[in-house]
């Protein structure tokens, strides 16, 4: 996923639920993304109804990646776009998900973009999406401003490589896997409406997939794309208050408080993500200077650097000895 220098102006984003949720808000979509720590029914029921699961992973093994089962559906009539720019992978996964959720409220620009791509092949659709300036700007607003552009200076890359994103969702009675790096969506078979519905089938498919990787070779996360709970909670609260159900009122208020504090934490993180810290760095160092603390901090930092160099040399010599 790394190494592609042509980022076409798309910045690499973090793969945090707060980042995804912020993107959805800017697209005018009333959905929220949350981390899933397990696929068991308890965990899944917290966020019902779930519209899509996003599986993000980094393959750190050295042998060939195992195949994921299912069948390619070249006639898939829904929305599917190829990933044509690596850095856009998070937004592309979101598009592949929301493009297939029926009756979903959307902002005007998003509706227009999706409608414009009707009938296109996945590659063309991917290119059209990636060329949408407003979408790229919404995407880039989620990461630090590139006030200092280090692109093209040939510096060693210290940032993490992008995760790979795969969307699982129900479409016309079957569970589908949408992977922007594959030619077409993969159909994993039909599901039953009763009980957990499509999630039961998706659980099978995802667990089977995880099991095919050698232990320890896969870093992954699961995200649930679901309705924003706040409006529903507000309505329930009003109803419970109106009917004098104190137990229910208390329970709902606890849930509201938890959800709101999580959203405030997310808003804090996102505001930190968007910020240009050059002024702050300067102010901090000036404060250290005024307090007479800068010299010592400098000396300690120099000592730490020497230690690092010495350790690297040890490793270098050890490596030479092995020759």
């Amino acid at each position: 996923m790394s190494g592609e220098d042509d980022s076409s102006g798309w910045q690499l984003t973090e793969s945090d639920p707060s980042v995804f949720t912020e993107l959805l808000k800017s697209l005018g979509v009333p959905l929220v993304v949350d981390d899933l720590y397990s696929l068991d029914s308890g965990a899944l029921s917290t966020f019902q109804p779930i519209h899509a699961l996003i599986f993000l992973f980094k393959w750190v093994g050295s042998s060939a990646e195992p195949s994921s089962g299912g069948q390619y559906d070249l006639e898939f009539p829904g929305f599917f776009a190829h990933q044509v720019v690596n850095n856009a992978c998070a937004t592309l996964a979101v598009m592949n998900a929301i493009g297939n959720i029926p009756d979903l409220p959307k902002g005007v620009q998003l509706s227009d973009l999706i409608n414009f791509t009707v009938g296109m092949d996945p590659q063309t659709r991917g290119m059209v999406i990636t060329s949408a300036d407003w979408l790229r700007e919404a995407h880039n607003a989620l990461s630090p401003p590139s006030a200092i552009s280090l692109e093209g200076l040939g510096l060693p890359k210290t940032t993490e490589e992008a995760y790979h994103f795969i969307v699982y969702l129900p479409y016309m009675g079957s569970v589908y896997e949408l992977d922007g790096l594959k030619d077409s969506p993969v159909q994993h078979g039909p599901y039953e409406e009763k009980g957990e519905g499509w999630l039961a089938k998706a659980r099978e498919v995802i667990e089977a997939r995880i099991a095919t990787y050698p232990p320890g070779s896969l870093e992954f996360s699961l995200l649930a794309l679901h309705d924003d709970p706040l409006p529903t909670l507000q309505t329930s609260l009003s109803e419970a208050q109106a009917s004098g159900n104190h137990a229910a009122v208390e329970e709902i208020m606890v849930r509201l408080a938890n959800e709101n504090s999580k959203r405030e934490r997310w808003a804090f993180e996102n505001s930190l993500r968007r910020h240009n810290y050059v002024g702050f760095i300067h102010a901090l160092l000036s404060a250290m200077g005024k307090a007479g603390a800068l010299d010592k901090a400098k000396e300690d930092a120099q000592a730490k650097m020497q230690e690092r160099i010495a350790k690297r040399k040890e490793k270098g010599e050890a490596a030479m000895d092995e020759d």
Partner: protein
Amino acid sequence: MSTEPRIAFKAGRAFRRENTNWVDPDPTKGAVILQNGEDGLLHFIWKNRTTNDSEEDLILFPSDATFAPVTQAASGRVYVLKFSSSNQRHFFWMQDADSTRDKDFVQNVNRLLLNPEELPVWFTGFPDALGTAAFEEPGTAQASSSSSSAQPAQPSQPAQPGQPGFQFTQEQLNQFQSMIESSGAGANVPPVVELSLTDVLTPANLTPLFTSHPELIQTLFPHLPPDLPSPPTPQTIQQVISSPQFRAAVRNFDQALRTGLLGGLVRGLGLPEEAGTGVEAFLRAIQDQAREGGGGDSMDTD
């Protein structure tokens, strides 16, 4: 990173006779080559020019080694590679019949040993007194064992003195040397010990400051993100400096400073352009600014 040779010159090895201070030159024709390895580190290689084998390959870390003249050697063309971290000594003697470029080679070796990112500087490509210059196309100079000297592949250098008879007087060399020294860009600039901004702006360094100098916290508020969900408090500053986003920004800025290209950007902070040339320079400039602008309180004490 390119693994092209960065400096190369004809040199033989010399070995200390056991238990004595005698160093005997080995007549084998060789070359000293400094180049970046696939491991991204600087390598000091001695190559046998007869067999074409690399018989020595030393990894060099910044500021770890120097290439110094052995003053007792009568010919004046013997040098020793010595390490600050060990007793290793490697002796070499210049094998190019033409000694006028010794100084250039040695100075450039030392520049690279100090900082592998440095670009070597060559002064023997200048036109002679008659105003004619012998320029060779870069990349055509070969490290051969015949008459011309081994030359580094330096695409940015238009002058490749490989022509026999292209002499440069010692006097002219001295003139250039004093020109470099007076402009402060030469080998007489004291070596800078590397440091990273990420080790300076640590919570461990910053938190005690807020307790001992609470008035300084006020100076930081204007620089916090403007769209925080609730009004900032001193606690907010703590949270920000411990956050992964801030740490990533410091790493990013540290890397940017190392490129030496932030002159324009730092002027926007009211600092001189020189402050954008490296981490050390940046810190020095801030120190100066704090001293001048500071409200009469603490100068640097420890």
